[in-house]
């Protein structure tokens, strides 16, 4: 009896050892993954809970990391929202010609992964006389503007009642006092619920580690905006907050050859954006969803 029992125990021990070894072997790819994960990063607090000193240390670390990876000096700032500033954006559909230079400028400015050609802006070619997105086409490939068409660039609308902010289970995305919806790349768990919730296809997920040739890297970076994102987190348009919070204009606006884009401070009565809102018949996309966008469209004629 005891012989059989012990043989059984030995067999079980052998089985358990074999199982453990097989498990370790199966999980081996994780050693590569864990190399990128430091204890400091793992324990890093939510953006809003970081002290100035902690943020300073994080920025030093990120710059050193960029230097090591790209061999270049990058400047990563954490610019706060300005007092008395609330951003708004408007786009003149009468003059947009659908050249997609805004999308390309976004791609460069925001250090998007090169192979996917990612951009926060999608331009839809629309049928004259229709606002039904179903008749739009984002993959047009012919000289523009085409006869009988108009063009509808869509990016994050920085909604005041943002569905993406509501659904995030860990508050990794929120609305800043100047109206910009941001993502803490170091807090996002990558569940992509926000991507499902957004009615404007404004969010992107880092399905892999973004790859950018060092010479193409934009060194002017913001912690909450265009620094090179980690794999496995969600990102989005931030109205180029690393530029706009420093008094500059968004990259997409500067790239527009027709002057279709108007950007500015909604609280400043003399700003061009206020002039547009007061003098043009503006509308927002999918108004019926109650998202209250800060991105407006209008026709000139």
């Amino acid at each position, binding site marked *: 009896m005891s012989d059989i029992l012990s043989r059984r125990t030995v067999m079980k021990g052998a089985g358990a050892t074999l199982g453990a070894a097989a*498990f370790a072997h199966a999980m081996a790819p994780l050693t590569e993954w864990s190399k990128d994960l430091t204890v400091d990063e793992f324990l890093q607090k939510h953006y809003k809970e970081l002290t100035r000193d902690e943020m300073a240390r994080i920025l030093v670390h990120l710059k050193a990391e960029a230097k090591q990876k790209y061999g270049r000096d990058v400047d990563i700032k954490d610019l706060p929202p300005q007092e008395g500033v609330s951003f708004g954006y408007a786009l003149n559909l009468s003059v947009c010609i659908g050249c997609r230079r805004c999308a390309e400028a976004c791609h460069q400015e925001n250090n998007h992964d090169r192979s996917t050609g990612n951009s926060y802006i999608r331009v839809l070619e629309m049928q004259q006389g229709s606002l039904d997105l179903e008749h739009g086409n984002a993959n047009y490939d012919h000289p523009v503007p085409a006869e009988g068409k108009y063009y509808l660039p869509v990016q994050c609308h920085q909604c005041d009642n943002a569905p993406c902010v509501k659904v995030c289970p860990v508050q990794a995305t929120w609305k800043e006092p100047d109206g910009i919806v941001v993502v803490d790349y170091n807090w996002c768990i990558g569940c992509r619920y926000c991507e499902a919730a957004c009615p404007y296809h404004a969010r992107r997920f880092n399905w892999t580690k973004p790859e950018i040739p060092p010479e193409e890297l934009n060194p002017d970076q913001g912690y909450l905006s265009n620094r090179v994102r980690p794999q496995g987190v969600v990102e989005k348009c931030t109205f180029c907050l690393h530029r706009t919070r420093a008094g500059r204009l968004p990259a997409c606006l500067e790239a527009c050859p027709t002057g279709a884009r108007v950007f500015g401070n909604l609280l400043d009565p003399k700003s061009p954006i206020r002039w547009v809102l007061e003098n043009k018949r503006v509308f927002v996309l999918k108004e019926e969803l109650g998202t209250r966008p800060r991105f407006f469209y209008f026709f000139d004629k």
Partner: protein
Amino acid sequence: MTATRHLLDYPRFLGRLLWMSTDGSWRFYTWMTVLTAIALVGANAWAHQLAEGMALTGMSDHVSWGLYIANFTFGVGLAAGAVMMVIPAYLYHDHEMHDVTLIGELLAIAAIAICLLFIVVDMGHPERAWHLLPGIGRFNWPVSMLTWDVVVLNGYLLINLHICGYLLYMRFLGRKPRKQWYLPFVFLSIFWAISIHSVTAFLYSGLGGRPFWNSALLAPRFIASAFITGPAFVIVLLQVIRRFTGLPIGEGPLRTLTSVMRVTVLLNLFMLGSELFTAFYTGGSHATAVRYLFFGSHGHHALVPWIWTAVALNITAAVLVHLPATRRHVGLLNLACALAFAGVWIEKGMGLIIPGFVPSTLHEVVEYVPTLTEWKITAGIWAFGLMVLTVAVKVALPVLSGQLAASHAAARH
């Protein structure tokens, strides 16, 4: 016995059960080895996905949820459906069902384990799961429906672990379970089972930007189909247990569960029909996703074979459970169960999640096809769930039947 002794004795009891679960026949060892192998293949695929990124899946920014969330949704239904054994036993005092209710509760535990794993593998940063911990992380409750899901799923797991653990432990000690220690939890679990699946439906139906999901009928549909898959699985499971363990399970529970299925298969088809009527009769852009699902759109047809298979399976199952011959031939009943299970798996899985994303919110049509990595991980998780279920049932039965009891153990030592 004092409470502190239980604190030590209960873990020891669980340890004994687990140790005992490693004993078995060659059939048991073969079954567990096969499941382990599949689970390991899944674990390996997941490790690769974590290291190299979720680009290894077929998902994209257009279709940002896929096979994992489809299986998660189905799994929640299975967990909720298991409660269909509790309701007859405790609300309608069905005594035969009472004896096997525990098996339903064990199934719920295994199904929740599956659901939690499907969420983990869908996360870009699973190591940041601690951000969800209230107090330590930033739990966005009550605003985010996902936090409600975290609460109800883990709560359901704990409730069922408590009920099963308490009843088995008392049986082991040879004592009569005290009603106040389990009955409130049993009734809570009935309410809670409905809540887990409603909340999971609200995850989707609360999104105004996705017309395909934005329907008040989603939660009732989820509950109806849960009460197909739960009973269907248990009907087959009870026969397997009867065959391999000799536990005397009467025909009563099988009959009751079949009656439940007779109603729910029709209810599910009726609600699907209502959705289809609303979509197709109204027409317009809101119906695009449904058109894509059933007939394809703009030359894209990836889901069409899936959904028609599901419809065929569900209708066949509905006919089968109503045939008089099915009452006489258990083989026909088992076939109906298998067809219904597979039909709902498609309808509530791929058939529900993917059309939410096709067309996208900007009405672009980008299709989704799961990759081998996703299939491996999915198979691995289901294999793991079956292992949990097998072990749970295997250790629970000797305690239930009195073969394993504290008095015997004391006598042997």
